[in-house]
């Protein structure tokens, strides 16, 4: 089951709407037991970093999420704040992040963002794919996605960067390492590009099932 983690931050309706349109079953829940049964996780979120970590903690979700992602290694997709929470921490807050990916979340550098550019970066931007990845398999030409953010990831290992985007300067707009993927943009608001990406995510083959040994008679 694909589970969208509901931790009371941001509007999750549109992600569920998009998965429904694609014909994928998904459950929106904050129940640790249901999250424990997930075969794929989406960690969404719009809002402030510390509030996000606090909500995860108060709902008792950090332990089960760590187990699912780090031990069971189920595919996880972070969206916007959800992806930022996967980093070690953010310039937006004091709280440490989940630390699943070797990255920090940085404020857009206003010194470098000039020429009438305003923060937040709000609107559509092109993304430039940096490595092959199942999330972008069969992606339409010149992919563009909808962004709303004042902070962005800064990956320590450049090999983790999945796409880059230019706004004032080039920043990592998504990352991917092993089963841990995060996008700064909003696929659920990005027309066919987002539909393709979320469809790809929902179709990623299940983690190898434990083979059932049957006795040879």
């Amino acid at each position: 089951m694909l589970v969208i983690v509901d931790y009371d931050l941001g509007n999750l309706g549109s992600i569920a709407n998009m998965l429904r349109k694609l014909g994928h079953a998904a459950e929106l829940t904050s129940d640790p037991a249901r999250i424990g049964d997930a075969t794929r996780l989406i960690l969404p979120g719009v809002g402030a970093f510390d509030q996000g970590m606090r909500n995860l903690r108060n709902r008792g979700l950090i332990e089960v999420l760590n187990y699912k992602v780090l031990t069971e290694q189920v595919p996880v997709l972070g969206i916007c704040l959800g992806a930022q929470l996967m980093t070690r921490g953010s310039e937006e807050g004091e709280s440490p992040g989940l630390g699943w990916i070797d990255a920090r979340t940085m404020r857009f550098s206003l010194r470098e963002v000039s020429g009438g550019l305003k923060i937040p970066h709000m609107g559509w931007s092109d993304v430039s794919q940096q490595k092959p990845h199942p999330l972008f398999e069969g992606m339409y030409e010149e992919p563009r996605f909808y962004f709303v953010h004042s902070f962005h990831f800064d990956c320590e290992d450049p090999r983790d960067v999945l796409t880059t985007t230019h706004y004032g300067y080039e920043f990592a707009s998504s990352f991917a390492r092993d089963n841990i993927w995060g996008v700064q943009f909003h696929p659920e608001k990005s027309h066919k590009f987002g539909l393709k990406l979320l469809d790809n995510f929902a179709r990623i083959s299940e983690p190898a099932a434990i083979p059932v040994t049957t006795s040879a008679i």
Partner: protein
Amino acid sequence: MRRYRVIPILLLRGKGLVKTTRFKDPKYVGDPINAIRIFNEKEVDELVFLDIEATRTGRTPDLQTLSDIASECFMPLCYGGGVNRPEFIEQILKTGVEKVSINSALVEDPDLVRHAAREHGSSTIVASIDYKRGLFGKAQVFTHAGTKGTGRSPVELAKLAEDLGAGEIALNCIDRDGTLQGYDVDTVRKVADAVSVPVIAIGGAGSLADFRSAIREGHASAVAAGAFFVFHGKHRAVLITYPGQDALREQVYA
């Protein structure tokens, strides 16, 4: 390449979509769900949907229609009209629409904007400011679908909206509405330069060149229009159009 949002604005009156001229003479242009589906297929950057009678008639937001739209249209959607209570904002956002436009309540109940921005995040709250240029060119903000003067200037209200936490300013020149004669670029620039949040220019767009000048000369972060996307030719036949990516790239972003 930097992209700028190009946003159709659809006006709801009763059950149908209309387009006004200077906020008057609403002309029926079609069924809302059908029009929104067409815009969705054209992959518009964003869509604004305003119920222009809601505040005057005391109508509450039509949540069922909003849900129907949000479950099919995967783009940023903004709703406005009669948004004067916190629970409306919450209900609207729950449908999957992620921006709420506040116009009359910005003047009458600024705390609503402050609380909504704190509760739901600045990026979900759009402050909508309608204004007219008087005889001597002085701009004054009007509420209640352009029927009620406030004696305040667009710059003053835009700054107030920013202080209250609104994430965007939608600036609409009533004198230009539906005229296709170009934006009031001077006022757009005055407001855009006075605030640090994005300003959406509205009112008068008749060509891609108008979009470009609102961005280049008016310093708008995004441009929106009504008549430009729904009327065709000098007889104003109803035809829904939206520029293709090549046209946007060459004539608007460049």
